[in-house]
Every structure is written in C-alpha cells, then in structure tokens.
C-alpha cells in the first residue's frame, strides 16, 4: 500500500489529538495558532492525497486496526472523498483566518482554548463523515459534530446565543434519535454495520423484495435524522438563530461546512449503501426532492424579509441546502454529482459572505443591520468585493461557482421527464428570489456615503481569507469541467 494512502487517517488523528491537547487551556493566541496550523496541515495533506488518488483513479479501504471488514472499522478513500476532505479542511483554515479578529473579540479569553477544541473536533468529524466506511462510526461522529457545533454557537456567550443553542441542540438530538433508530433497524435486517457488507445485504433484500417496509422506514428515518441536522426544509427553524447569532468564524464554519458533513454522509448512504435504484424504488428520493425545492423557495422568501445581514445569510443557507437535497432527490447519478458540486460551491461562497459581512460590519461599528452597513464597502473595498463575488455566486451569475452548480442541477434533471419541469421552474424562481435580496444588499453596501471619520484598522488575515475564498469561488466557476469530471469519477468509485 502506498504511504500516501495513510494520509486520511493521519488527518483524522491529527485533529483529534490536537483537540485533546488544546483542552489543557493554552493562551488564546497559541490555541488559535494551533488549530489554524492543524487545519492548514490537514489541507496540505489532503491536497497531496487528492492529487495522488485522482491520478491513480482508484478507491481503497483502510482498516482501522488489524481486522478487515466486516469485523473491524474501516475508512474508505477515493477521489470524491479526497476532494471533499481537501475543500473542507481548506475552508476551515480560511474561516479561522477570516474570523480571527471577531473570534478574539467575541470569545472569553480564558475559554478560547475550549472553543478551539471544538473547531478541531468539527474538522475531525467532517473528515470521518466523509471517509467513513462504517455506519456506526458515522453515528458516533455525527454526535461529536453536533455537540461541537452547538458549542461553537454558544462560544460567543450571550443570552440569545444560549437560547439559539438550546433550540439547535434539541432539534439535533431529535435527529440523532431518528438516525440511531434507523440504523438499528437496518442492522436488525442485515446483520452488518460496515457499508460494503450492508450494501450487499440490502441489494439481496431489495432483489428478493423482502422486508421492504423495514428498509423504507430505516432509510426514511436516517434521511430525516440527517435532514434535521442539515436544515432540510421542515426542520430548518433552528438554523437562522444559531448561524445568525454566532461569531463570524463559527457562522462561517457552521453554514459552510458542518451542514455539509451530514449531506455528504447522506449521499454516501444513498450511493454506497442503498444504491440510487433502491432509493428511487422506495420512493424516498421523491420526498427528498419535494422537501429540497420547498426549502429553496421558503429560505429565499424568508431571507427577503430579513434586515439583519447574518440572519439573511443564514436563511440563504436554508435555500442553498435545498439545492443539495433537490439534487440528491433527483435520484440519478447526474443529480447527485450536481449536489456534490453544490456542496463545494456553497462551501466556498457562504464562508466568503460571512467573512466579508463580518468585516463590513466591523468597519460600521459592529452593526449588523443592513441599513447600518450602507456604504461600508467603500471603507473596506476588499470585503465589499468579496461580498460581491459571494452574492453573485449565490444568485447564479456565470463565471462564479454557484452558476456551475445550478447549471449542473438543471442538466441533471433533464433525463427524468417528470421532475424536469418542476426542477427547472424552481431553479429559475429561486434564482430570481436570490437576486431579490442579494443584489439590493450588494448595492446597499456599495452606495451611500464613502468615508467615515473613524478609519478602521487593517485586517490582513481577513483580507487574505477573502481573497482565497473568492479565488475558490471563481475557480469552481471557471474550471467547472475538470471538477465535475473528478466528482463523477469519484461517485463511480464510491
């Protein structure tokens, strides 16, 4: 086995060991530096891994211990996992960079170490959710991710964030309960927990037409459980409060990454364990499709009515997650590939928006209301540009990542005759709705009085993060073909 194949395992353990050591309570700057370094190292390692695995064009199972599947835990690496791992760790790194100033301002100095523990744990669980080949490992790391994400929300210690955390945690726990119930049902009818064996057993049951009810129930419960956690439409109420009230870095990480981790796991379940044909036959994909496009519309409608910039971005996350679920709900390879691309595009664009909005609000006296941000882009042009790139990507203007994702979704919906009309109509409508709140917000930050008496200080870390995130959005928009090709190859090997 080539040595490079060890890298996913190294990334996971590096994050976890760093988290354990960070709980010793180092000074705030050191703690931040360590977690930034860990994220950067993981990004680098993931990049090397991605390049090598894409060139080798293969997938491999990595035994976590001495005993291979079906006896011991396993992780599985392939081009798709490598891509997700790289993007997740890179974006985590950039979120930390971009939210640095706010992070130190919002989090109690003595507790920064603990908040950094949570950041490392979130990264570790994102890696595991991407790479895992064992469904029970996935459950355990879903829990880690949930607890750590809640902790990130309340790291900024104030009354409203506490209440937002309570709502987030309680809904997430409902989701965990449903996921675990579904998992137990699946285990009861197949007798396996490792995905390859599960997949074989499910295929056997589906071919024989046995235990359809249990399979459908288990798939539905797991989908609902993961859906609650990633803010699928009827379970989205917790998201705006939680993401809107946290500190900049937390909001960016939560909106850009944490929500995606569960979606990636859901895709893994659909493609690797149940296979898309079975999912379609059990009619679960249709339900996901409907919920997905409802979320797209509703999230955008609510975002239009929002005057608090971070809450507006949070509502937009609900809509963007809807795109992912719509893609998955198409139940075809092309739809899932487009959903994967949307995960990547949104993972760059939303942190970019949050980081830019954080900077814009920092130069406007830390006001978060949109009318207070009037003209703020003149005071911080780079943040204004970043906000522009993110907003245009969300609206779906060509050149930017969001356009490519929408195009992929539209193309993916064409083979399925019944869903084409709905999907295309909803995509068009949601693009218009996105434009209705992003463009005014964009014009708002660029118009009005240019300079204020108080010149804000420079924030180089934030500028670097904005530049890199914007570069990511543009890369995805301009190099759509190769990335999509990699995703399709990865999905075939998943």
């Amino acid at each position, binding site marked *: *086995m080539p040595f490079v194949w*060890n890298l996913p*395992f190294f990334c996971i*353990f590096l994050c*976890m*060991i760093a*988290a*354990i*050591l960070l*709980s*010793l*309570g180092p000074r705030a700057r050191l703690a931040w530096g360590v977690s930034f370094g860990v994220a950067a190292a993981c990004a680098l390692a993931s990049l090397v891994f991605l390049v090598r695995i894409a060139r080798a064009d293969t997938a491999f199972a990595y*035994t*976590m*211990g*001495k*005993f291979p599947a*079906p006896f*011991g*835990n396993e992780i599985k690496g392939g081009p798709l996992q490598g891509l997700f791992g790289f993007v997740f760790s890179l974006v985590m790194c950039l979120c930390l960079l971009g939210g640095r100033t706010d992070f130190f301002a919002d989090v*109690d100095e*003595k*507790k920064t170490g*603990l908040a950094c523990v949570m950041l490392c*744990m979130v990264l570790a669980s994102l890696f595991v959710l991407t790479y895992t080949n*064992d469904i*029970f*490992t996935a459950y*355990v*790391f879903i829990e*880690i991710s949930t607890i*750590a994400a*809640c*902790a990130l929300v*309340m*790291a900024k210690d104030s009354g409203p964030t506490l209440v937002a955390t309570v709502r987030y945690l309680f809904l997430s726990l409902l989701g965990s309960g449903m996921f675990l119930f579904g998992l137990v*049902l699946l*285990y*009861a*009818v197949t*007798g*396996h927990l490792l995905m390859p064996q599960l997949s074989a*057993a499910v295929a056997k049951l589906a071919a024989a037409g046995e*235990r359809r*009810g*249990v399979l*459908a*129930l288990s798939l*539905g419960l797991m989908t609902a459980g993961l859906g609650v956690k990633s803010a699928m439409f009827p379970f989205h109420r917790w998201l705006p409060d939680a993401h809107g009230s946290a500190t900049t870095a937390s909001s960016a990480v939560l909106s850009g990454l944490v929500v995606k981790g569960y979606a990636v796991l859901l895709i893994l379940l659909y493609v690797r364990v149940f296979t898309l044909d079975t999912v379609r036959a059990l009619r679960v994909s249709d339900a996901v499709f409907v919920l997905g496009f409802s979320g797209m519309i509703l999230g955008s409608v609510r975002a*239009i*009515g929002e*005057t608090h910039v971070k809450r507006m971005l949070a509502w937009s996350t609900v809509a963007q997650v809807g795109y992912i679920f719509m893609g998955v709900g198409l139940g075809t390879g092309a739809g899932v590939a487009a959903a994967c691309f949307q995960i990547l595009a949104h993972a760059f664009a939303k942190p970019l928006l949050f980081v830019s909005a954080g900077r814009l609000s920092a130069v406007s006296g830390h006001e978060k*209301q*949109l*009318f*207070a941000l009037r003209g703020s882009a003149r005071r911080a042009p780079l943040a204004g540009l970043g906000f522009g790139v993110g907003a245009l990507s969300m609206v779906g203007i060509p050149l930017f990542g969001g356009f490519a994702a929408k195009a992929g979704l539209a193309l993916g919906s064409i083979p399925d005759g019944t869903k084409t009309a709905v999907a295309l109509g909803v995509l068009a409508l949601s693009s218009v709705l996105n434009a209705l*709140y992003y463009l005014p917000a964009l014009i*708002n930050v660029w*118009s009005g*009085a240019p300079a204020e008496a108080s010149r804000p200080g420079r924030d180089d870390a934030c500028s670097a993060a904005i530049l890199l995130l914007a570069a990511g959005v543009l890369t995805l928009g301009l190099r759509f073909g190769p990335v999509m090709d990699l995703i399709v190859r990865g999905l075939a090997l998943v």
Partner: protein
Amino acid sequence: MSALRRWLDGESGYPLRAGWRETPPKKPKTRPARRDDRRQLDGFLRAYALCAIVLCMLLALCLILGVAGLPPFADAGNPTNNEVAERYVGSAEEETGAENAVAGMILNYRGFDTFGESCVLFVALCCVELLLRATTPALRKEAEACEKEAARDAILATVARFIVPCVLVFGLCILFHGHLSPGGGFSGGAVLGAALILFAAAFGRDRVRRFFTRRVFDAVRISGLMLYAVMFGLYVFLGANGVESGLSRWIVQIIDVAVGLVVMSTMYGFFAFYTKGEL
C-alpha cells in the same frame, strides 16, 4: 421606481423589506397591544400542539408497522447472528485476549468507534466547562445563584465513610477485571466517578481538592485520552499497513484502564462544574 431611486440616493430605507419603509427603523415600536399578542401566541401554540400530536401519531404508526416486519424476536436464525457475531464470540479470546467478548469487540475490533465515543465524553466535558466555568465575576454570581452548598449532613458523612471505600474497591475491580468478566472501562470509570462525587458531597469539595486538583484532573483526563489515542493510532497504523505487531493481544487491557481514567474524571468534572463552576 421612484422609491428605488430615492433609496439609491440614500434618502429612504431599504426596498422590499418591511413594506418599502421610508426611514430606517430605530427601535421596535413599544407595544401597547399585549393582549392581542398573547392571543396570537396562544393560537399558534394550539395549532403547533395539534400538528405535533398528529406528527407523533403518524411516526408511531410508521414505526410500529415497520418493526412488525423485523425478523422474529430471540430467534437464532436472525440475520444479526451471522459470521461476524460468530467471529467475535469464537475468536475474541484468541485474538484480543479478552474473555469478555463485548470488551474485546468494542476495544479492539471496533476500537475506532470507542475512541470516538470517548471523544464524545471529552467534548461534552469541554462544553460543560465552556458553559459553566466561572471565569468572570458575573458568571461566578450566576453560579452561586444557581447552587447553594447544603450544610454538611452527619448521616451522609457517617454512611459515606463506610461506603466510599467499598465503592472504590468495587470500581477498581470492575475496571481491572473488565476484560475477563462483565464490566470494563466505562462502567468501572463511572463507579469510580460516583465514589468521588459521593465523597465530595459528604465531606465537601475542599477535601477532594486536596488530592484532586485542577492539575491532577487535567493530567488524569488528558493522559488517559492521549494514551488511548496514541496506542490506538499506532495499532491502526501498523495494522492497516500489514505490520505484525502483537499489540492486538494486550491492547484491550491498556485501553480499558485509559478509558476508566477518562470516564472517572469526566463524571467528577460534570459534578464539579455543575455545582460551583470550578473544579
């Protein structure tokens, strides 16, 4: 259109939000109509309750219909009693050195899950510390308002004097014998933690603090978890790369003790942060 132009010129509020408002709102209006508000809330709550009940009925129905299709209860021919279960029972002692097949399974075969599980405990303790550790005067006041230390209880102290040593011995027994009989790191650690909590409740936190200071607490907890992480990391690295190491036979015992330490300190940590916001 004129509203849009006025807005672009910076003369009016934000279009499309709150009904093309002319001026930006300064503060939400003071609300005289409280009764109306409350009635609305009541209506909403009633509708919400109805929806919730219907939803849960549906959920229960789906679950019951679903589980009726499960393989029959307690049947030896169920799909769960397959080659995996047989391997865990048949080869556990030989491959992991644990007579307790459950301990062998969770600490060796599926050790990564269990490492994650220990990390869940660890993360939870960090969260509790993040929330409750009284670092500022305001938080300290809050913690004191939530918790008043009860007066020392003579009965509790007398009983605890007899019970605590027994519980400790029992906990250690479960902990160190976990791979051979029912028990193991998690249960043993929980019992030890309970002994510490009982001791603290009976004789006061200061007595505990004499030997279980913050530094000891961190050392125990973090060295336990690091021991687990490093041992298991090594085991995985060697195992996945096909190097024969012989770790497999005794890793269960070591990890069991490490887990026990982690669980013990976590349980006590929960108690300590709940009551005083400090260890």
